[in-house]
């Protein structure tokens, strides 16, 4: 089975280059696809697309607000995937959503793959509950990425590192998306990199160039979500957000690992 997400991220990190993965809430604005294109042009190694759910239990106020706004626009998984399928975006796409939406459709993973989305993150499916979903993802050619947290004990961390596909998603802080970046993330990423050769991305609370550079010292790269979504909620255009991402790219490239 090909591993589009993992291969691309492994390639991206060659020579110590740091990976940069922006997050976008699908359907946040009618022109949401343009943000994906801007991110792809401005240094994204992959893009995480949030499929909005009514009860996003791991999201802080910013991404909750973005999800609510998208849902009020009437977006559906089906509609969002149709738009993605028609778009040309030449970096790997990863869906992030909650298990109720995944379990709602028996063809969920197949539909993702058909739309060109080859990665999946479901934060309310921990490794113990992941088996059925991992099987249907694999059958559809979708890489199911698992999350690790600062409180995860060592034996579970090893299990997560083994079972995760694409990369390992290291949650930097005991909190929700958009929380303040914490040093606990560095320790977690370091532990994970000793356990696996898979790319390890640090996420949650990475808001500034300094946060990103600090995070990239211990991980293969970063996911930036709430900090970008805040700007979009405040009216930032696709071009403006592309420039913001380019700024992160430059900061990461300038730092020596």
């Amino acid at each position, binding site marked *: 089975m090909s591993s589009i997400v993992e291969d691309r991220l492994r390639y991206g990190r060659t020579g110590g280059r740091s990976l940069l993965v922006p997050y976008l809430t699908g359907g946040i604005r009618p022109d949401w696809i343009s943000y994906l294109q801007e991110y792809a042009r401005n240094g994204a190694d992959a893009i995480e697309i949030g499929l909005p759910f009514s009860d996003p239990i791991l999201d802080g106020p910013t991404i909750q607000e973005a999800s609510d706004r998208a849902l009020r626009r009437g977006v559906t998984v089906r509609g969002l995937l149709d738009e993605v399928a028609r778009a040309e975006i030449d970096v790997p796409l990863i869906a992030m959503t909650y298990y109720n939406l995944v379990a709602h459709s028996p063809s969920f993973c197949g539909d993702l793959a058909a739309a060109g989305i080859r990665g999946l993150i479901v934060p309310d499916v921990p490794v113990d*509950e992941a088996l059925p979903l991992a099987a249907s993802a694999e059958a559809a050619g979708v890489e199911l990425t698992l999350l690790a*947290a600062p409180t995860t004990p060592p034996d579970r961390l090893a299990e997560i590192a083994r079972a995760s596909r694409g990369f390992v998603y290291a949650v930097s802080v005991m909190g929700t998306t958009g929380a303040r970046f914490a040093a606990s993330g560095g320790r977690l990423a370091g532990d994970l990199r000793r356990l696996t050769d898979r790319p390890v991305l640090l996420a949650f609370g990475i808001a500034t160039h300094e946060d990103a550079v600090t995070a990239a010292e211990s991980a293969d790269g970063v996911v930036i979500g709430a900090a970008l979504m805040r700007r979009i909620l405040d009216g930032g255009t696709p071009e403006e957000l592309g420039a913001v991402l380019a700024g992160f790219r430059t900061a990461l490239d300038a730092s020596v690992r």
Partner: protein
Amino acid sequence: MTEIALPAPAASVMSDPGSPGRFGDHGGRYVPESLIPACAAVEEAFRDAWADPRFRRDLDRLLAVHAGRPTALTPAWRLSAELGVNVLLKREDLAHTGSHKINNVLGQALLARRMGKTRLLAETGAGSHGVATATAAALLGLSATVFMGEVDMERQALNVYRMRMLGAEVIPVTGGTRTLKDATSEAMRQWVTCVDEAHYCLGSVMGPHPYPWMVREFQRVIGDEARRQCAAELTTGIPDYVVACVGGGSNAAGTFAGFADTGAQLIGVEAEGGAAIAFGQVGVLHGFRSYLVQDENGQVAEAHSIAPGLDYPGVGPEHAHLNDTGRARYVTVGDAEVIPAVRRLARTEGILPALESAHAIAWVIRAAESGELPPWSTVLVTLSGRGDKDVATLMAAS
């Protein structure tokens, strides 16, 4: 009271769901990785405490001297005569704070203290669980933070004041529909940030394992007491029907647990506007798999009931399993039947039931009048709470 020999409980019905926390296909532990160690710690602590006679003795004593247990089993004489069936009421409305909620929070607060926690977090819809949590926290010297939807805070301003009087911090939840389901999500989000010092005191038989099982065990005092009281009250020993209202389903689970191994028919009464078993599909929310009211796209729907305690789009996973296996039957009652049921019980028995509990009464009235309940069959109804909190709603409806 004479000690009667009970048949051995059937191992498969309402037993320990084991470490995966499964009731058939339902239940589980669908929470973010950050909460997994905390849930595992609650499970370990609960298993240890529940097997410890000292913990059981401490809890029994609190239930007796603070909560006022055992609660009465009241024969509803005049209602029975009118309906032609023998109705017995298990009076959780007489428990301290006015409902069965106190049984669970005293158990969880004692457990939290045993785990070395100093703080309780809770969600609340109408405020009953919030008030009970604030009460248990005050009693045991813990601090309490209660999450409540902004909409519910307006509707239930008196309960907000009660919680604050008891020393709890009440935090408005402004996301989503600003009701119970959003308050539950927010309590779980906040728990992630303070797992070291805080215990999440979940209010019903829902959430990630071990909560559905643990809360049922803390509530089974209702069913265990009623079983002994029925044995003394009824010549047959066991009622023909055991009826309770179901939102998340904690009073029903506690009641059913006392009768699961008997021949009694178990009936759960859902509110029409939040009837997860009747109208929902299997889904995953707040850490567990069960029936869930959702739209055609898989977004969770907002529940609507005149009874705020039944305003939850999901239902406890064990109820989903009892439904699937046929051990319990779930029926629905609409708002229109509820207020007449409140009036009828008030005027025949001098008992003003909570709107939630009135759903169970309404079904008994309907089933007796339609002949579904055979003449002079015995019906145990758990009256989960008192109606004082609903007086404003009743005034507005009259």
